């Protein structure tokens, strides 16, 4: 074998090693988290862990329901706020706005998508928390410090805007312009064309953008943790403090070795998050792939 062929051989092997590493990474993560959670899973039933609200680690009670509920509340409200905003903004930028506006906005959106979540968190603490505590809550006759589900949801919705908006712009870009022309030629107005043709043609893509936005928001940690209050309770209103899963994991890793089964519980929390987000990602990525294939 010549030296060149030897190099070629080694290099190809190294490429395969690297690729295998990534292919195995999620498997390794899942296995690692399952193994660590086993301690907890052997002592409690899965439904107990998920649906019980009794969270007293020092007594060995691990009910994740308050955290799951907080996560769902904050993520769903965030999406409810950002979904229509993103859709309308995407419609304006891709359909109504002059070209230069879109050309200008694309990099701006990209750059905003890259701003670290902790920075959104700082903005949340400085602006959103006082806004909720001093303006919104009193308006509804509610006494809130501002550190609440609503504050978390507002910060999260703003964070998810660049991410979702980017995907929606791509969805509309992929609708062939002739399809719009066909509708206009039949006498439809621009808005009717958007409503009946663009939104319908892009329905799968729009749904996927929302789905991926949801999974992204669900895993968001630090910004939400900074504004949501982190109180273990089943939130009863949007002005209550919450304690989403990622915040639970991030806040308590320090003492997880000092309380029995606590480490196992936190890893179970991570496993829950991992599985949910993985499933959502697979489903919606697949939908995107299918719709592009057509």
């Amino acid at each position, binding site marked *: 074998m010549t030296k060149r062929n030897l190099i070629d051989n080694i290099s190809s092997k190294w490429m395969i090693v690297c690729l295998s590493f990534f292919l195995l990474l999620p498997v390794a993560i899942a296995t690692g988290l399952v193994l660590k959670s086993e301690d907890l899973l052997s002592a409690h039933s899965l439904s107990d862990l998920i649906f019980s609200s009794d969270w007293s680690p020092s007594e060995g009670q691990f009910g994740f329901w308050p955290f799951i509920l907080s996560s769902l509340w904050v993520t769903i409200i965030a999406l409810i706020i950002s979904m229509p905003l993103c859709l309308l903004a995407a419609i304006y930028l891709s359909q109504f706005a*002059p*070209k230069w506006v879109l050309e200008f906005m694309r990099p701006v959106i990209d750059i905003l998508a890259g701003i670290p979540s902790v920075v959104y968190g700082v903005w949340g603490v400085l602006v959103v928390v006082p806004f909720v505590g001093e303006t919104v809550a009193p308006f509804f006759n509610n006494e809130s410090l501002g550190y609440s589900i609503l504050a978390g949801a507002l910060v999260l919705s703003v964070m998810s805007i660049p991410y979702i908006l980017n995907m929606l712009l791509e969805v509309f870009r992929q609708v*062939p*312009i*002739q*399809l*719009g*022309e*066909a*509708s*206009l*030629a*039949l*006498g*439809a*107005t621009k808005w*009717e064309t958007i409503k*009946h*043709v663009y939104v*319908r*043609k892009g329905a799968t893509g729009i749904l996927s953008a929302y789905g991926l936005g949801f999974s992204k928001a669900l895993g968001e940690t630090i910004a939400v943790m900074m504004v949501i209050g982190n109180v273990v309770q089943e939130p009863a209103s949007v002005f209550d403090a919450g304690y989403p899963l990622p915040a639970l994991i991030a806040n308590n890793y320090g003492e997880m070795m000092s309380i029995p089964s606590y480490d196992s519980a936190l890893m179970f929390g991570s496993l829950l998050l991992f599985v949910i987000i993985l499933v959502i990602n697979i489903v919606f990525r697949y939908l995107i792939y299918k719709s592009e294939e*057509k």
Partner: protein
Amino acid sequence: MSNIITSTDINAALGNNAGNEVPIVNIRNLNVRSKSAHILKDINLIIPKNKITVLLGPSGCGKTTLLKCMNRLTDLYSELKLDGSIEIDGEDILSGKYDITQIRQKMGLVMQRPFPLPMSIYDNIAYGLKLKGVTNKAIIKEKVEKHLKEVALWDEVKDRLKTSAQRLSIGQQQRLCLARGLAVEPEIILADEPTSALDPISSRVIEEEFSNLKDDYTIILVTHILRQAKRLADFVVFMYYGEIVEYGPANEIFENPKTDILKEYLQVGH
């Protein structure tokens, strides 16, 4: 190009050769410019009613742009600047005085490739009717059937009207798009190389339908296929690099070309 055709020339041509044709489209001094190019130069053109007028010429000569000007789909391309006038039934559609959605409903558009709307076969036809304000379901149903029959598609799809139009074959899709355009009851059919994506059999079906439709509609057909032009055209507009080079009745143009460019084009065939 030296011989720019004026409207007087055209009137003369019409008067001499075609009897008393009623013009339905009257284009005067139309210029279309983009930032970098002068796409259409001083277009003057009269298109007679209930005839097939073929816009002929090599690709890139501005035929499609001219077609898109007539129902102002050029609005979608913000870089295009139009001046001059295009009168349809005596109304200048470039003046901005008229409601463009109504003007567009006077014209049915058939494109190079079929673009069925993302809805069922039935709704593709009903879409334009609903835009026109037709709400009576029985009327819509009746018209869907009528126009699908008009393009000889009814028998093929009558059992699956509620299925997605995207599942039809490409030839069927193109006929559906034609029916969709007819459903708004236009006066004019704008067809932009409607057979270029089709197999020979579907192409023949579309061509036959055009011949049948010309009793009721004015058809403006863009094509670069010389044989197709010969088969279908009553009038021919020969375009080259954004200008009209020759215009006249089909037999005149094909048998007695005046300019060298057209002579060469007729010989080479593209």
